[in-house]
């Protein structure tokens, strides 16, 4: 048994739990980006019949609790819990990022596309050089929000056995039950430190910068 003070408690949560939290965030966001981008392009550019499939994907993954997804993948795939959790976060984030990207693509001004066509660009070139570069910038505030959502949702992974920050509290309280509340508070504070600066930066600075570029809000 080991008695712990608050600083050693914090140190344990960070060393034992934070790596999985960060890893899942990166994996979920990265995978979600690829899926989201593909789905958004399908929804904007593909035929209606195919776009409907992308929409169905979004509806399904937005309508199921992320913990249920994690449990499903855990019992279906035979992968370690960390992979199952990452898969669930990634597939689900893809559904949300698709909406963010689609909104951004649709809010690129029609004039920009006209000008690109007038220069002689084809659809692919217009999408690649004009629409997507602007859409990525327009999507930044939405992404910063999604970053916070994914970061917070990694906490569900503790329930299927991933040693994240919430799960690390379980290990601590066996030896030090009195630290139950302080440990949860510490985890909460770490999450806040992870999410708030980025959403705030993106939410305010980025929106200002975008409008100084004549992107977003003006049209």
């Amino acid at each position: 048994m080991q008695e712990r003070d608050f600083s050693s408690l914090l140190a344990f949560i960070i060393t034992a739990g934070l790596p999985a939290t960060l890893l899942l965030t990166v994996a979920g966001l990265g995978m979600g980006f690829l899926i989201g981008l593909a789905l958004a392009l399908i929804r904007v550019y593909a035929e209606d019949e195919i776009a409907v499939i992308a929409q169905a994907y979004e509806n399904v993954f937005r309508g199921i609790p992320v913990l249920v997804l994690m449990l499903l993948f855990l019992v279906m795939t035979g992968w370690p819990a960390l992979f199952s959790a990452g898969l669930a976060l990634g597939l689900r984030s893809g559904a949300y990022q698709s909406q963010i990207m689609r909104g951004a693509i649709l809010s690129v001004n029609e004039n920009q596309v006209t000008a690109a066509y007038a220069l002689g660009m084809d659809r692919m070139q217009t999408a690649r050089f004009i629409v997507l570069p602007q859409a990525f910038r327009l999507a930044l505030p939405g992404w910063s929000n999604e970053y916070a959502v994914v970061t917070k949702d990694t906490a569900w992974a503790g329930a299927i056995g991933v040693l994240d920050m919430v799960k690390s509290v379980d290990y601590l309280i066996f030896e030090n039950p009195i630290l139950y509340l302080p440990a949860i508070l510490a985890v909460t504070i770490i999450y806040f430190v992870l999410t708030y600066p980025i959403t705030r930066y993106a939410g305010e600075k980025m929106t200002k910068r975008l409008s100084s570029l004549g992107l977003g809000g003006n049209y």
Partner: protein
Amino acid sequence: MSSGKQTLIVYLVIGLMIGFGLGFITPGLIPETQVDQVAVIQARGTLIVGTEAGFPPYEMYNTTSGEYYGFDIDIAQLIADDLGVDLVIEDMAFDTLVAACKAGTVDMIAAAMFLTADRAKELAFSVPYFISNEVMVVNGSNALEIDNLADLVGQDVGVQTGTVEHDEIQAEIDDGTAIILHTYASVAQMFIDLNSGILDAVYIDEPVYDVYAELYILRTIYKVAAPATVLYCRWNNPGLLTVIDDVITTAFADGTMTTLVETWFG
């Protein structure tokens, strides 16, 4: 959006749901072949063992060294040594262990898991390596006394999800006894809740109670012999099961098991 398109979406969504469900179930339709799991494990160089590491003294996590330790861990280590591979512990919720072993996430379960007919239908089981009791635990100050589980009417009872204790209480409820069941993933949290008065009683393995009795002032009010504790692995790899059984039998024969029991339960 036209109503035709809406209908299409609905069908697609349902199709997707069923589709990704069936996609994973279908492998079950293919006749299973025997797998030489021992060769797989030795080629991989690791024996992956599933457990729920909040269950002292069977399995615990050392928050200083970052290692898993405990009675079951030592036994798993014996098996890994016999196979000549490293031991890897996968810690997960107790109620997901059987599914995880069936799905192939882990090679073996060592989680103070009792032998039951339901589990034996799903997974192959080793020879018993330990026998313990199930106890109903209350706070030292609680005057509650019971003769059987039916006397728990109106009591808040905590169990770990998926344990035999959980089954027993649920069966008692199904029989019409008004027990208020709380299920926990974490035993540590369960004892905190017992201590703070959210729970009236906790139903758990006796060795675990012995550990927590050093932390809190507790009292047992009911005790019943538990089924044998066994290790589980998948049915289709007799080779691995033979190794597990051999290691346990040898450990009993050469006194290793006695030492281990004394170390962890003495």
